[in-house]
């Protein structure tokens, strides 16, 4: 569920974490655990590995709340990035020595794109996501989707196209695949 949280929430959460407030840690978990877990699961395809990444990611954030820079974007996207980096590092570790180097790189690239795509889908405006869900998962054509959503056909076409345009950036805009400063991949 996307949350339109104002940046104020992000900054306040960071301050609360920095001053060691356990209640803030619980709230952080409640807001982001499903995001972290599902991204880790998408990259690693394994539930217990995703559990482990979830523990590591929250551990990292709790120990390094200052690593988040509100000027660089939302806490949500930062949490997603930390998760992706950690999960992909684990994927590399697990796949090392299995198959060729090219296979590994292809796998990593695929996992990165899949994780970014998931994040984009969960973060995109709800109207776009609703249109994509109808067209893709419910197999409605755009006219039916327009009727379902009580919008014009023009608008339905617009939302489907815009939704896919956003999603396509997962393939073309690789997020930095290097660890953010101070974040070792092998913690």
């Amino acid at each position, binding site marked *: *569920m996307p949350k339109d949280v104002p940046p104020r929430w992000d900054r306040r959460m960071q301050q609360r974490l920095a*001053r*060691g*407030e*356990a*209640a*803030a*840690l*619980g*709230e952080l*978990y*409640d807001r982001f*655990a*499903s995001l972290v*877990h*599902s991204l880790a*699961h*998408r990259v690693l395809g394994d*539930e217990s590995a995703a*559990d482990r990444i*979830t*523990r590591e990611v*929250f*551990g990292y954030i*709790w*120990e390094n709340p200052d690593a988040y820079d509100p000027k660089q974007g939302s806490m949500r996207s930062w949490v997603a990035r930390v998760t992706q980096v950690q999960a992909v590092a684990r994927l590399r570790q697990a796949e090392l020595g299995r198959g060729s180097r090219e296979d590994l790189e292809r796998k990593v690239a695929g996992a990165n*794109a*899949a994780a970014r*795509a*998931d994040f984009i*889908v969960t973060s995109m405006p709800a109207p776009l996501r609703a249109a*994509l869900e109808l*067209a*893709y*998962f419910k197999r*409605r*054509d*755009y*006219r039916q*989707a327009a009727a379902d959503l009580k919008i*014009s056909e*023009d*608008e*339905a*076409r*617009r*939302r*489907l*196209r*815009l*939704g*896919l*345009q956003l*999603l*396509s950036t*997962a*393939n*073309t805009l690789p997020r930095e695949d290097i660890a953010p400063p101070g974040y070792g991949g092998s913690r």
Partner: protein
Amino acid sequence: MTGPSGAPGDGYDDGCGDGYGLPGGGTRIPGPRGAADDLDPRYAPDAPPVAAPVTPPPTPPHGVLKSLLGAWALAACSAEETQAVEDHLTECAPCAEEALRLRDAVGLLHPADSLDLKPMLRSRVLEDCLGKRPARIPVPAWATPYDTETARLDALLQDFGDAEWHTPVRLKWFEGERGRSHRTTVAGVIGHLLTVDGMVATALGLDDPLGPDAPQGNPSKRTEFFWGGSDRPVTRQVREPWREQGHTLVRTVSFAGRGVAELSVDYGPFALPLGDAFLERAFECWVHAWDIAEAVDYPYDPPSGPDMHRMIDLAARLLPGALAHRRRSGLAAPPRGLVAAGAPGRTLHLEIEGSGGGSWDIALDSPAAKPSPEHRVAHIALDGGEFCQLAAGHISPEEAAIGQQGDREAIRDVLFTAASLSRL
């Protein structure tokens, strides 16, 4: 902004807009190249015969074709439109490039994982974190079961659609000598939790979620006030305020001083110190989460052993007072003799098996009497889940599967009293 080329962020408007779809243009299906592109006579005069025999559907203007790219990539347009787009793609490089990009993007769509987060993961993650870096402002131990149970229920609600939110739920409790029930919906149950948690909030000086006119110190009256406050049924909108209040409560007691656990919360016929009120709220949250899960046919686990133990301990501590209350109402047998305050009196030994279990000695004659192993007159043993069901009013004292020996009357009184701890 409803125009077909109004999609924001597209940079393609000027690239290939010329030549196609001019209103009133005679040529419906453009040839591979526009005649004016090339003066080669082979291209110029041949166009007209192509369109002659059947009249094909008019080709949509470029802007429309472009706006169809998303629907096309998702296979969500008509056969004619698909054909028109595909014809167009052979001629328009920018659209062809975008089409490819969007089709690749479709490959990234993926059904959301139906995988649920394991509820116990939260406690483990928090424990891990606090082991690495101890909290400077910890959550008081008596508030953690509430924190855990509200988070667990919230996770259950996470994927609920409107259908689930409006699923009927029958709330059950025990009053006097018999079971009572009230029908509401999943949203109504969350409203009930919001309402009663609000009593703890006001005890802490926070705003009453029901506003200043709400009845105080009476969970049922408050709930009726909330349910009856609007003509429209409670909706999923209730989740956010309930959740936020829960977070606020936990945060507030984290910052409060040590003595806060002793602050009194008024429940009407009785009052609980804040620490116990948090436990009571945790118990109620679990019980209603269980009601909800049953109504929508989801599995729902009991609390962790240590949390369950705290909840059972609270019930065991409440039993002597509640028994005295029933006695005053003529619902329990009179005491067998006067016991001076603090002196040992007749005692029932309560043994709870399973996770969170333990054993408790319950004073039978008066809340002021001291329970004493030497004065045991009865012994009952039951499973923790069973005891909680009983204390929640979900099963009647006659239904509970219990191992018992000793004074029958004392056993009956304690079991009925346990059931009477429940309320709406």
